[in-house]
């Protein structure tokens, strides 16, 4: 009985670990403003940022999320657990209840990178071929 329970717990943990690992979209880059002190970020922390549970970097700077407007992005969906519409609604609820600030939206990748480069505390997901002038890439753990 105990061994059966141990196997079930191990299998459950494996499934959850798999779920966490599956949450990281292959190939996508995590880019951030160069003022962000962190060089690494875990998948869990990334999810906490995109769901508003973590609002500040370690140094106390406000986290500013930048996203592509109107795009059902696979990377965003996997990191946040929400599609583009749910993600926008989620953050609008926080903004208009006095509990958060809306992510910045950009119409295209080049503008998205410029927004991240120009905004203190900004973070975003970008395709591997995105131009990376002015931003840093965070290693995903």
């Amino acid at each position: 009985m105990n061994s059966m329970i141990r196997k079930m717990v191990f299998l459950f943990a494996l499934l959850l670990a798999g779920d966490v690992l599956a949450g990281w979209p292959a190939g996508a880059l995590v880019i951030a403003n160069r003022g962000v002190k962190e060089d690494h970020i875990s998948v869990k922390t990334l999810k906490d940022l995109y769901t508003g549970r973590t609002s500040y970097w370690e140094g106390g700077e406000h986290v500013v999320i930048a996203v592509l407007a109107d795009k059902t992005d696979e990377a965003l969906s996997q990191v946040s657990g929400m599609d583009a519409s749910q993600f926008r609604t989620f953050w609008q609820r926080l903004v208009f209840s006095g509990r958060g600030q809306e992510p910045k939206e950009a119409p295209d990748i080049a503008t998205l990178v410029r927004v991240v480069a120009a905004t203190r505390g900004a973070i975003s997901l970008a395709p591997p071929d995105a131009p990376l002038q002015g931003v840093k890439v965070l290693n995903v753990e």
Partner: protein
Amino acid sequence: MHAYRFVALRCWKRMAGTLKPSILPYGGFLAVLVVASLAMFDADRTNAADWYPAGTSSPDVEFHGFASQGFLYSSQYNYLGKSSKGSFKFTEMGLNASFDPFPRTRIMVGGFADDVGEAGKYDAVLDYALAEYTISDYFGIRAGRIRRPDGIYNDIQDVDLGRTFVLLPQGIYDARYRDFNVSLDGGEFFGTLPLQQAGSLSYELYGGLMRPSLDGGVGLQLRNSLPSNAHLDTIDPMKIFGDQLWWNSPIDGLRLGASVGYISGFDYSAVIPTPVGPLHLSDPSDILLQTYSAEYLWKNWTLQSECIFTDTLTKTLGTPDVRQFSWYAAGAFRINKWLEVGSYYTEYYSNAHSPGIIPSDGFQKDAAISLRFDLTNRWIFKVEGHLIHGTGLLQDNVDNPVRHDNGWLMIAVKSTISF
């Protein structure tokens, strides 16, 4: 959150109330025009409106706003205004600003005005004004005027952007009573505690004072329950303490919530002139609120269900306590980036212990279907139909003198612009 209705039930025989004319019947259209102009001005910027008060080296101030204009039509009763003839008295608008002056510190201010039926009357209110300090993900503090967390929608029930439906289930989120439900002057502790493989637990513990407006839904209903020659002088500020807990499960998109709130000292003061002198009325009570919630976001689906128990604990001898109960189940599906369809079924019971004098006033059941069109990122349009049984939520006996338990329809249309 309809605890004040115990007054209406006890004063049911006194059919009274006068309705004050609206000052700005077309204010909603003006507000939509203003916000539309701002939205168009901002159309090719990233989003919102940013202001750098001292150059780009200073923290920027972010502005957001919205304006909503709706239309209601009821096939039989005047619900949420004089809707039996069609009513445009369904306007909401808000404007807020926020900035981060220091590390881990945020200041946010929001103003709001609405006109829903005879409640609101476009009275501009300070919706929230708070300072927030986040020590860590586990612990933070907000103080000032804050929006009260209670269930999925209480703190954003007047924000049309934040949901599929025009009308939220009214037994839990009555559009007329935002002044009673939404804000409090005080503070809260908040944070999220990790539970390792069990997900996380988000909490908000709050306390402060609630200050319902004389022109809000509570004031309206108190006047409707009093004799026509009565004058409602004050609604006393009342203390409230409570919490909202959310278990964020390890299953992506699934969360369960529980909220408890205790209101101490609900009371009002009214005067009825009589031949022998003025008669002063008051009716103190305490109120216990319990809300239980479930939400699951799965791919394009949003599934939600909630129930609320509202117990009014009267302090007047010989007056029984009153329990009200409501629940709903809702689902919404995003078909594509511009169209979402949703539906819900809800029930409301005005007194679980004893029925009202008119049987249909003891309950209201509502099946709704809704279409939400996201015309642009900043402009949405909704159309919705309701099939309703019961009259428990009408709360306007003067405009609905004859009420019975037959089915009736309601159509709701609403457009919102935001930036």
